[in-house]
């Protein structure tokens, strides 16, 4: 058993979880929307990337540049057609609507691609690794670069939200949408941008996941749960908290898997429940959940 290695691998996976979680955090933060189809959008993007690669023979890394703009459009479309109608209404309709969407997406994928798992082949790059501490710790080059990209995405996003005019409007809308409207903020377009960001980041996470492990049509719900746990562990409304939440979840899972492969998810969930009991506002959260 190699604890240090488990922790390192956990941190690297945590970066991926944070990327899943970012979109959930943004859409809840800006429009108080909980999208149960979040994970299915990630899986769907990975399938589209896979189809693109099979059809053109190009590398999955190039597929990213095709799929991401597409997912931004999908995000705007979904916001305009579906989610604008459930923002601000009784949350039970929100949950039912996004749950219905989730079931529909999962089964469209199942029908289209059957139940067989797929993977995105990144070739030689996926096998390269760095060895540390006398070969005891092996860091895959791909997981490392994926972690770096995840952090980069979070840095860009927090600069966008913290420093730009639209980012300020994001936060103002989150605080008080009615007054933001009075100040001339077009909240519909703010919502569309927020949702485009949510779908784009989760699509990138889905593709990155597919480059390392197999994925299948039914994976979405598990990804949603990982994203959700990362957000709550880190604390709502804090992107860096989300990164830490993802890392904590990742470490808990890899340590659980070291003890017994069947415990990987269970230990992750238990850590989440403990945080919820001990510190319901999350580790970096300032406010109680409302």
């Amino acid at each position, binding site marked *: 058993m190699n604890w240090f290695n488990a922790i390192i691998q956990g941190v690297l996976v945590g970066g991926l979880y944070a990327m899943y979680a970012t979109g959930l955090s943004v859409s809840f933060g800006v429009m108080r929307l909980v999208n149960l189809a979040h994970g299915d959008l990630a899986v769907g993007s990975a399938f589209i990337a896979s189809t693109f690669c099979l059809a053109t023979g190009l590398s999955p890394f190039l597929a990213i540049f095709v799929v991401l703009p597409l997912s931004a459009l999908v995000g705007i479309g979904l916001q305009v057609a579906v989610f604008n109608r459930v923002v601000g209404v009784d949350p039970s309709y929100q949950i039912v609507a996004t749950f219905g969407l989730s079931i529909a997406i999962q089964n469209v994928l199942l029908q289209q691609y059957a139940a067989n798992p797929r993977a995105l082949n990144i070739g030689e790059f996926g096998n390269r690794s760095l060895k540390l501490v006398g070969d005891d710790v092996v860091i895959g080059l791909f997981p490392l670069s994926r972690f770096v990209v995840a952090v980069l995405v979070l840095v860009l996003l927090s600069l966008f939200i913290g420093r730009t005019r639209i980012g300020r409007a994001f936060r103002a809308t*989150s605080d*008080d949408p009615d*007054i933001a*409207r009075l100040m*001339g903020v077009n909240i519909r377009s703010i919502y569309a941008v927020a949702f485009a960001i949510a779908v784009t980041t989760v699509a990138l996470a889905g593709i990155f996941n597919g480059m390392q492990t197999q994925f299948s049509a039914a994976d979405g719900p598990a990804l949603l749960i990982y994203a959700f746990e990362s957000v709550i562990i880190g604390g709502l409304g804090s992107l860096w908290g989300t990164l830490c939440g993802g890392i904590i979840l990742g470490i808990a899972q890899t340590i659980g898997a070291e003890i017994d492969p069947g415990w990987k998810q269970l230990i992750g969930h238990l850590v989440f429940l403990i945080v919820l009991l001990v510190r319901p506002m999350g580790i970096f959260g300032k406010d109680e959940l409302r």
Partner: protein
Amino acid sequence: MSLLEVRNLSAGYGQFQALFDISLNLNEGAAIAVIGANGAGKSTLLKSIAGVVDVIFGEIIFDGESIVNLQPHERLNRGIALVPEGRRIFRSLTVDENLSIGAYSRRQGVWNRELVYEVFPMLAKLTDRRADNLSGGEQQALAIGRALMSNPRLLLLDEVSLGLAPIVVKKLYEILPRIRATGCSLIYVEQDTNQALSASEYAYCLLEGQVSLEGKPSDLSREQIASAYFGIGVNK
């Protein structure tokens, strides 16, 4: 010249009608007061001018044009800014950022960050403070400053004195003439009549969604105001 003219306005929320046949006039550069008891429809009147309440019937003419069918942000672009009841500043934004959102419409004019800080010196040393850490008076100053950043021609002030200490209210009202000096017209809505009446040239009193009294504050007696305010002792 008339800047704002409200003609026979009826308005409300969904099934509930709050205003009945209200008419009001405001000249460019003037300040008027709208007084009345809790629930008389004062806030609804300001909100329907700002565009966040459904107008059932009637006209609102701003600068010679009807604005009834315009969205709130389009009215803001023409120069109508609301300081909402309860201040409603953006709590998780800093003071500086709140002012930036106020300038979101990019309307040009004399007002900018520096002038707001000069007029409200209490805000100048708090620029990077999160707005939910401000005192009530500072929050109210910020709410007014935020509205001024859109360079309004008409500033709608909803219950500025609500929940503030008298000394703070006095301080805020002392600043208002400086705002008028930039050519901005004002409508005050207050439950506390004295402040509002002393700061305006003309006053309307609302009772149950209708104008129960209007006139120059100097022409109105205490008794007249009391009866129009509470709806008692009026001979019809």
